[in-house]
């Protein structure tokens, strides 16, 4: 199942990467005569309300979604992971302050926080990444902190200290490899969440500004013409569903293999 999911994700990632070569038309080229035209051989997924080719826009839209969500999750893993390990390792007041700050971040619903950050700072790619990173840092900090707490009491860490290793070396060389598994399982699931958040923000109208194609933005435009041309909303929805399904399958598969309780049963 994880392999199939991985294949789905790879399919979408590759088609987004190769969008400049794969897309049959310019995603921004308007063709007034083809406004809301139904699918044809030349435009296999039809045309939107500006007569633009829907297939090309979906291929290009994937680039924005994947770029924003992947960057956000990677940044969140680095910052959240580092904060979590530091908090768990140092402990004491530092731990309490960091985790308290994470609790505050968790006090805002993901989408509402993304909505406010983008609305206040402006809908640019950078701000979208910032908004989604903010929603994902706290969960990664928590997931990295929990195993650190137990690992730092283990003998091999004690041995490292006795050998005079620096704290930095102990954290990076000895604790990080033990934490990374849990973090990676979460990464697949959070990537799905990040893609969902990006699409939701674009759907609300807070995504990368038009005419740039984004999946959420295309669904938003399609939704305005839902009565006449429902496929405008349906095709980009299918694109989102394929990635989400793929990522969730990968996440599930990773979790099953990393959780010994479920493995041997």
């Amino acid at each position, binding site marked *: 199942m994880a392999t199939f999911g991985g294949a789905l994700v790879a399919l979408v990632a590759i088609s987004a990467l190769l969008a400049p070569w794969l897309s049959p038309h310019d995603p921004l080229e308007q063709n007034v005569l083809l406004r809301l035209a139904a699918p044809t051989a030349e435009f296999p997924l039809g045309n939107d309300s500006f007569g633009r080719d829907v297939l090309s826009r979906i291929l290009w839209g994937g680039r924005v979604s994947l770029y924003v969500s992947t960057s956000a999750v990677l940044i969140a893993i680095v910052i959240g992971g580092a904060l979590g390990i530091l908090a768990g390792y140092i402990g004491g007041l530092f731990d309490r302050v960091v985790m308290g700050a994470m609790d505050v971040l968790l006090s805002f*619903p993901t989408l509402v926080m993304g*909505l406010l950050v983008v609305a206040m700072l402006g809908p640019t790619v950078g701000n979208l990444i910032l908004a989604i990173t903010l929603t994902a840092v706290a969960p990664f900090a928590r997931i990295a902190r929990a195993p650190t707490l137990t690992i730092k009491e283990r003998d091999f860490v004690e041995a490292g200290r006795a050998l005079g290793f620096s704290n930095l070396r102990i954290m990076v060389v000895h604790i990080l490899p033990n934490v990374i598994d849990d973090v990676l399982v979460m990464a697949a699931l959070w990537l799905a969440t990040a893609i969902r958040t990006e699409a939701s923000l674009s759907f609300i109208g807070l995504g990368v500004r038009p005419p740039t194609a984004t999946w959420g933005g295309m669904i938003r435009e399609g939704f305005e013409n*839902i009565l006449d041309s429902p496929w405008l909303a349906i095709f980009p929805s299918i694109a989102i569903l394929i990635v989400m399904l793929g990522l969730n399958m990968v996440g599930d598969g990773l979790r099953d293999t990393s959780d010994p309780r479920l493995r041997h049963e």
Partner: protein
Amino acid sequence: MLTYILKRLLVAIPTLLAVLTVVFFFVRIAPGDPAFIILGDQASQEALAAVRHDLGLDRPLPVQYVDFMATVLSGNLGNSLVTHRPVWQEVRNVLPYTIELTVTALIIGVALGLPLGVAAAKHRNRALDYAARIFSLIGLSFPAFVSAIMLLLAFAIQLHWFPVISEAREGDPLSRVSALVLPAVNLGLIMVAYVMRVARSSMLGVLGEDYIRTARAKGVPARVVVWRHALGNALIPVVTVVGLYLGVLIGNSVLTEIVFNRPGLGKLIVNSLNQRDYTMLQGLMVVYAFIIVIVNLLTDLTYGVVDPRVRQT
């Protein structure tokens, strides 16, 4: 139990204060001058200064901060920059719609998700389990606005079973129910997927424990083992997920309210974003954060109800 409740309440207070502080600074660092928004770009410098003075924005930041905390904590969220009505009143007007929607979704999610998850665990790797897992995988993959649009297309636009715009007519309780069905089912089904998955995996973990084998060996009927002996211990992770899920549910309710054109907090927040109504946004952030903190508190209290061991520590 009482000391447990009091202890949890005390822990929630610093979080709440920190949240308010974040809201305060967040709204202040945002670009855009509220006075400018109220008066438009034709306004004279004097008029802008006067409005800033009225809003208290010409005072030093620490003074504004103390004032903000004092008014919010006394229950006053200020007035909307656009409608000039109290923020709390605007919130109170639409809050019942959002509560009605999320609570119905919550009931659907738990009432279907829990038994399905338990049944899937009980019949592990059989047809029912596979069906349940596939359903949950699909449910987890649907962004709420996508599923909402699909439901709208199928049941309102194609089949005409429900209204396209979920607006209840005044004094017609039946129209209110029919306006609630699709949005609530949309949120509810996604939640079923979450609850079912946790209930299943938590139940699988518990069913492998020794005391379950002992109970079986003693000849306790399978039904009693599953629902009495196992479920009690499997419930804790489910409570956690339901509590955590409320944040997602609130986000999803915003999207659902937009698609079904339904009044509620979500529509309010999107409208105030479009109109740059900063006091309204500030107030809504406070309301949302309060809801989350209260839900976390309720989740913790539910642990105490579900698991007697929690009460003692």
